[in-house]
């Protein structure tokens, strides 16, 4: 079946005409989505991630809702909770002042069919605005997916006015077979700093395709780290525009994949102003017949002199059928730039395993120690004392040694 046919079937149950907001915009976004349907390998941006194939099993899914008692990390910070893409007042802290996007996205769909789909069917989302100079501390943003056969499409918006600071810790969980396509619009204005930590622990039966659309102003910074352990197929797609001189972005990610999981990190960083830096490190641990993907594109505009861009793809392949695909792309129109990319892909080092075993450590524990060490380096730059333990706990409880 074609990507469009699957999509029609799956989306049949979503009555877009009944949704609130600008109907014209929704219908046009829907048309944009249906011009491709679920993307497959024929679409360049999806060459390594065949979403259509994964969505096939969703086409006939009966819509089942379940009552899920969501569990939250027990941390003492204000939280916003979205269940199946809709704000849940009872589960959220009342201390937080924020608006809701209520299904009205800004027009930032671009060319991504998934962002268009989100625009067509979104119901809700957090709209966080931090005023100039404010240090807004840390917010926990929890997403819970709880219904089989559902398309969950929150649209969040985070705006940092000049010189303000915010840390957002996103925890993404769920149970059941659902599709989660969150879109987050981020605007960090001059001198602001947004730290954005994402812990993706979706249901193992779900499909997760997150899109982050960020614009970073002069001397502003956006630091993001994603740890992905869940979902049958997961893709985190970052579109970051460095729009003011001296802007800085760090996009780091780690993914732990096993069984038949598919994990994709895709980044498009546009250096549109001079003297900006971008740093990206993606680490994948891949077991079973799982597959990891890192596509990283750095675009340097003519005016973006003194650009400093760096990209690194590191993967540990734990089995013979594990796979990683790496696609770095540099598109450079300025002449005074420093851009580099690298990849380090391999298996665990038998010498290191033997060293540990010769000290009495079992082979399985030796492997786990070395994998954790590999991931530990990914966590090293995370100094946030709320986020860090969450990530460490998620790594600790991963299904270690599930296959030899």
């Amino acid at each position, binding site marked *: 079946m074609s990507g469009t046919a699957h999509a029609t079937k799956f989306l049949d149950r979503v009555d877009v005409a009944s949704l609130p907001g600008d109907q014209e915009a929704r219908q046009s976004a829907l048309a944009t989505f249906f011009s491709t349907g679920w993307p497959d390998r024929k679409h360049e941006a999806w060459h390594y991630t065949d979403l259509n194939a994964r969505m096939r099993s969703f086409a006939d899914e009966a819509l089942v809702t379940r009552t899920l008692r969501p569990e939250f990390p027990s941390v003492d910070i204000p939280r916003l909770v979205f269940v199946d893409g809709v704000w849940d007042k009872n589960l959220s802290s009342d201390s937080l002042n924020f608006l809701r996007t209520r299904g009205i996205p800004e027009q930032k769909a671009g060319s991504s069919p998934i962002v268009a789909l989100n625009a067509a069917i979104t119901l809700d989302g957090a709209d966080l605005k931090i005023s100039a100079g404010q240090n807004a501390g840390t917010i926990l943003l929890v997403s819970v997916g709880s219904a089989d056969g559902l398309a969950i499409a929150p649209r969040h918006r985070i705006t940092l006015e000049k010189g303000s600071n915010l840390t957002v810790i996103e925890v993404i969980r769920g149970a059941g077979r659902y599709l989660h396509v969150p879109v987050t619009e981020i605007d960090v204005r001059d001198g602001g700093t947004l730290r954005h930590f994402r812990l993706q622990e979706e249901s193992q039966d779900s499909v997760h395709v997150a899109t982050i659309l960020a614009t970073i102003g002069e001397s502003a910074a956006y630091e993001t780290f994603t740890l992905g352990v869940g979902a049958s197929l997961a893709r985190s797609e970052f579109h970051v525009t460095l729009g003011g001189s001296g802007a800085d972005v760090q996009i780091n990610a780690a993914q732990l994949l096993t069984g038949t999981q598919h994990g994709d990190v895709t980044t498009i960083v546009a250096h549109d102003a001079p003297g900006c830096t971008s740093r990206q490190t993606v680490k994948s641990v891949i077991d079973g017949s799982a597959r990891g993907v890192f596509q990283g594109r750095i675009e340097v505009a003519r005016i973006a002199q003194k650009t400093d861009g760096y990209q690194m793809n590191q993967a540990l392949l734990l089995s013979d059928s594990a796979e990683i695909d790496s696609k770095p792309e540099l598109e450079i129109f300025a002449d005074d730039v420093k851009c580099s990319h690298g990849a380090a892909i391999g298996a665990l080092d038998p010498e290191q395993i033997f060293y540990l075993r010769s000290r009495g450590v079992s082979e399985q524990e030796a492997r786990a120690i070395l994998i954790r060490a590999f*991931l530990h380096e990914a966590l090293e730059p995370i100094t946030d004392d709320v986020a860090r333990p969450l990530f460490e706990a998620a790594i600790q409880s991963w299904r270690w040694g599930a296959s030899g």
Partner: protein
Amino acid sequence: MLEIKGLRASVGAKEILTGIDLTVPDGEIHAVMGPNGAGKSTLSYILSGRDGYEVTGGAVSFDGADLLVMAPEARAAAGIFLAFQYPIELPGVGNANFIRTAVNAVRRARGETEMDTVTFLKEARNAVKALAMPDDMLKRNVNVGFSGGEKKRNEILQMTLLKPKLALLDETDSGLDIDALRIVAGGVNAARGPKFSALVITHYQRLLDYITPDRVHVLAAGRIVRSGGPELAVELEQHGYGGLEAA
């Protein structure tokens, strides 16, 4: 007690050990000397269970058990410790954690209770001090950024804390200055006792000035060509290995 009888081993088509007979009784320290490429490291790897060698003949028993069928971690639990000629770096693994994990793995395998962190750290700090190692040695990642001498001392630190029954020291002396040599030898001498034995592999007689061996063996071209008392080491130092290989 370690008993090696007629041990032959190859890598691929190449025979490296051509028939080794060697017995190390409890409480004794034996030195194994020999030219480069003689097979000294190969012997130490085979005794500790590294993959990649094919034992083509002979037998090795340790305290009566067939050593060659045991996994490396089981050998460690049985009391064998190899100080590597080239210690391995473990980026991202803290040294204290590494050693404590090893100590507790061995204790578990022996049916002993695990050592708690406080007790372990106290013992570890004492050992670090005794080996004149820098204070941050326990905090750093295993062997990462260590100088050659620090790596060798870190092997002895592990030996001290793991308390093996048989230590295989593979050229632990090479690359050490005389002070470090004295300290490392002190670590080995401190372990000496009726329940501790060691196979000290070395190129030079130097180390044996500080660790007096009960026996000295010369390994050349994959077999023991001569054995004797401590005086053999002195003789080798004076005349070299040249004449012995023919013997």
